[in-house]
Structure formats: C-alpha cells, structure tokens
C-alpha cells in the first residue's frame, strides 16, 4: 500500500521535531528513512504509524486519510499495520507463540485460526518448534524474529521498522534484514525502515529519505544517493560507513582531503594512472575499497592530490570528465 505524507509538522514546546515533511512512499518497496539521533525520526515514525497526531499536515494510506480518524476507526486501522521496534517490545508475560497470538486475540479471531496461523508464522521467521519458549530465553535475533511474526500476524500491508536492528550485532542485523526483504517480496509489503545506520539502508532499502532537523534533505534511489550524495548529512552517513566497512581499507589515519567515488565498470578502469599521466598530479591514497550497493559496485577512494592546487584542480576536472564523483572533505575524514 502506498503511503503519502503531506507537509507533516509536529512541535514539542518550541522544538520543531518534524518540520514540514512531504513524502511519497511507493507501494511494495523497502523505504528507508535515515537520520541522526534527534533528527525527528522517532516522531516521524509515530506520526506515520498513527501513534501520534500531527499538528499540521496529512497522512494517507492508499487513498485513505488516517491522521484524523476518530478513536474507534483509529484502533481498527492500527490493526492493519505491523510494527517492530529497537527493543523488540515483546510481552515478558507471554511465551513466543502467545506473543504472536496477541494481535489476533485482540481482534477476537477464533482459537483454531490463531493456533494455525501462529505455527505458520513461526515457520516463516525460522523458529519452528520454539513457540513455547519464554521470551527471556531467546537471543536478540530470535526476539526480533518473534516480533516480526507478531507484526505480520494480522497480514498487514505495511510494516514499520523503528530502529529494528540497532540493538543487534552486525551478523544478526544482516540476517534480520534478509528476512525482512524476503518477507517483503513474499507478502508484497510496503516496509518503512527508520534507522541511523547507513548499512541498513545499503543492505535492505530500495529508496531512502534523509532526515535532518525535522526536514527531508535528500530523497531517492539508494544507489543514486550512494553515488552522488548531495547534502552534508548524507555525505557524513556514507563516509562513516566507508571507514567501518570491511571492504574499504584505510592505512593512514590522517590526510585524505578528497573522496572519489566510481560507479560500476569504472572500478575496472585505470583512471588514476591515466589522470596522473595527463595532468602530472600525484595521488597519496589514504583509504580505498569497493562497496556493493543494491547490486551496483561503488568504488571509494580517499586521497590527497598534489603537488599543488592548480594541478589538483586539473586532476579533479579530468576525474569528473571520466564520470568519477569527487568530493572535497573539509577536515580529512
């Protein structure tokens, strides 16, 4: 189901937590919303998921406006969406299968159906036979699997993931993201993924919106954003990723005034050497590697360019002519 946000605003006292957000979240996609802490992500997800009413603006699920529903309708509409959280938020008083049964219980579904559906869901998330397990005996990844099963119990068309992998280790994060992607395809879900981790966006999302100070500063297809980030916040997210990601190796902690990004086949061409021959520029490479974003390879190189400013400018021009994205970093990396 498509989600449309029109000029959403929400203030807390004098703070503009969400300040005029308009977005079209297409049906049947994994849509990332990334922002630093305090950027307004949590408020935004609460507004989109009908947990809070906006001060201004509108939220549509498909053609239906949902931000101004009366209480009873609101409860009915909430029963059609699924949501998972950073801290899993499972009921400690219930075991795994009773947790999964909860959303069906509150809709007064019959016991037989609930039992059958619970089994299906446990299998879907890879927890067959663990239904009777008390929540405290499950690992973080298993808890999130139970939470996913619980969220999908009522066959929603929309799944909200609020920092769903932030409390998990990298390996478990990848497994959970893979599961979410798989389920998204199987059930034709619209998944909205709120996160502060760029690797989540890289590994799981089709499109992404970057949120900063309550406003959307950038929006688009993930591979495009990775290749040509426009806003400082986005660049920062991507560069933070570069330094931590395995395939980008940094061998010098200082320096690195320029960040070069090569897309696709360009990673196979000897661009640096040819630019050196052409302009006489010298490159002092500080870090380099290749990242895979949504099936597209993006080469990253952090480097200084010498010997002087003029030649460096020529080299940058030559690089840009070759289709390389060159960014000047203010204070190194």
């Amino acid at each position, binding site marked *: 189901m498509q989600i449309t946000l029109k000029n959403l605003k929400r203030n807390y006292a004098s703070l503009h937590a969400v300040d005029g957000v308009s977005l079209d979240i297409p049906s049947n996609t994994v849509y990332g919303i990334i922002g630093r802490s305090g950027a307004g992500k949590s408020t935004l997800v609460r507004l989109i*998921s009908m*947990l809070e009413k906006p001060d201004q603006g509108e939220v549509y699920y498909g053609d239906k406006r949902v931000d101004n529903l009366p209480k009873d309708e609101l*409860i*009915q*509409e*909430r*029963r*059609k*969406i699924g*949501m998972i*959280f950073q*801290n899993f*938020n*499972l*009921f*400690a*008083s*219930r075991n795994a299968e009773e947790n999964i049964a*909860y*959303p069906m*219980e*509150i*809709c007064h579904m019959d016991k037989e159906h609930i039992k059958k559906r619970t089994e299906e869901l446990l299998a879907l998330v890879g927890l067959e036979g663990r239904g009777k397990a*008390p*929540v*405290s005996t499950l690992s973080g990844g298993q808890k999130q699997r139970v939470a996913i099963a*619980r969220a999908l119990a*009522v066959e929603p068309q929309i799944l*909200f993931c609020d920092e769903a992998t932030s409390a998990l280790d990298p390996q478990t994060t990848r497994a959970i993201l893979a599961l979410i992607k798989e389920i998204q395809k199987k059930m034709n879900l619209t998944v909205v993924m709120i996160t502060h981790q760029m690797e989540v966006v890289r590994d799981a999302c089709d499109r992404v919106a970057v949120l900063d100070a309550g406003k959307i500063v950038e929006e688009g297809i993930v591979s495009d954003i990775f290749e040509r980030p426009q806003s400082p916040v986005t660049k920062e997210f991507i560069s933070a990723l570069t330094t931590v990601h395995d395939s980008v190796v940094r061998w010098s902690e200082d320096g690195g005034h320029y960040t070069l990004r090569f897309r696709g086949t360009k990673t196979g061409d000897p661009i640096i050497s040819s630019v050196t021959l052409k302009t006489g520029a010298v490159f002092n490479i500080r870090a380099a590697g290749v990242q895979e974003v949504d099936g597209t390879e993006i080469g990253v190189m952090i480097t200084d360019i010498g010997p002087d400013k003029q030649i460096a400018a020529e080299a940058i021009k030559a690089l840009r002519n070759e289709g390389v994205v060159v960014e000047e970093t203010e204070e190194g990396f």
Partner: protein
Amino acid sequence: MNTMFQLVWEATQQTIVMVFLSTIFSLILGFPIGVLLHVTGSEEHGGILPHPAFYAVMSRIVNILRSFPFLILMIVLMPLSRLIIGTSIGTMATVIPLSIAAAPFVARVIESSLKEVDPGVVQAAKAMGSTNWQIIVKVLIPEALPSLVSGVTLTIINLIGYSAMAGAIGGGGLGDLAIRYGYQRFRPSYMVAAVVIIIVMVELIQFIGDRISGHLISRR
C-alpha cells in the same frame, strides 16, 4: 491451660478472618483506584489516558487517607461500621475500617507496580490496535503480575499489623487478646503467645508471597 489454648485459637481465627476479609475488600476498593492512578498519570510514566487534573485530585485524596493514623481512622469510621454491620465492636466491625485504611495503600502499591511495566511494550500493544481496556487487562496486569503479587503480600502483612492495633479498641483477634489478657490482666504468656503467632503469620505470608512471585518470574 486448656482455656488459654482455646482463647488463643479463637483469637487467631478472628485475626485470620479479619485479615482475609479486609484484604479482599481493600483490593476491591484499592485495585481499580491504583489502575486509574496509573492510566491517568503522565505519559512519561506510561499513562495511557493522561488526565493531569483527575490524577492530581485522586492522588491528593489517596495521600490524605494514607496519612491518617489508623487508630484515629478507626474511631472516625465507627459510625460507618455501625451502619453497615450493626455494631462498632468485634471482628466484623473492624473489617470496615481495616479495608478503608488499607485501600489507599493498595492503590499506591498497584500504581507503582504498573509503572514498572516497560512503556515500549505498552506502545507496541497500542500500535497493534489494542483498546485501552485490552492494554490494562492483557498487557499491564499480566506484565506487572510478579510485582503485583509482592504488593499484595505487603498489604496482607500491613493488615496483620493493623488488625492487632484494632484490638486496642475492641476489634477482637490476637491484638485484643494480648491487650485484655496479657496487658490488663498481667498474663505475659498470653502476650507472648499472641506476638509469636503474629510473627509466624507474617513470616508465612512473606514466604508464600515470595514463592508465588518467584515462580511467576521463573516462568518468563
């Protein structure tokens, strides 16, 4: 010796009846108030229906009732006992002031137990489309159950203490026995017997309460 045994046994039975009934009634009175206090409390503390004015008034009433010394409350409530039970003396008549004295305590204990429930879990329940009633019955109370059991244990023990005090103004039970026989008739053996039995009762209740609460936690 036979008569002493009989007297002590009767007094023990009276105390058990008093404590049992007043626990039930104070829970009936205090539990809903505790839930109301919690749900109308501020949102940061997990209130699902925040209502500051209602909360403030309710909270004040509970505090006033709690700060009443029990002995004075009992005297004040004598006419009420007479109205309901027909007398203001004896075991049954004492149940009324005991229940009313314990109810605000119960309310606070319930409120603080419910406050311990993870607000994230309540938010999840809300996001799934739970009604407020479903949140209270299916989430808040079951999630807080081990803590609620400890709270009820505390209430029962408090009521054992109160019921002994009630003996001082003709309430019956072990407190009454200790005062009339042990103190006024200089029979220390009665005093000792009453005190020992009260200690045993308190220990027993604490033990059972801890076991139930521990069992509930171990199943999680």
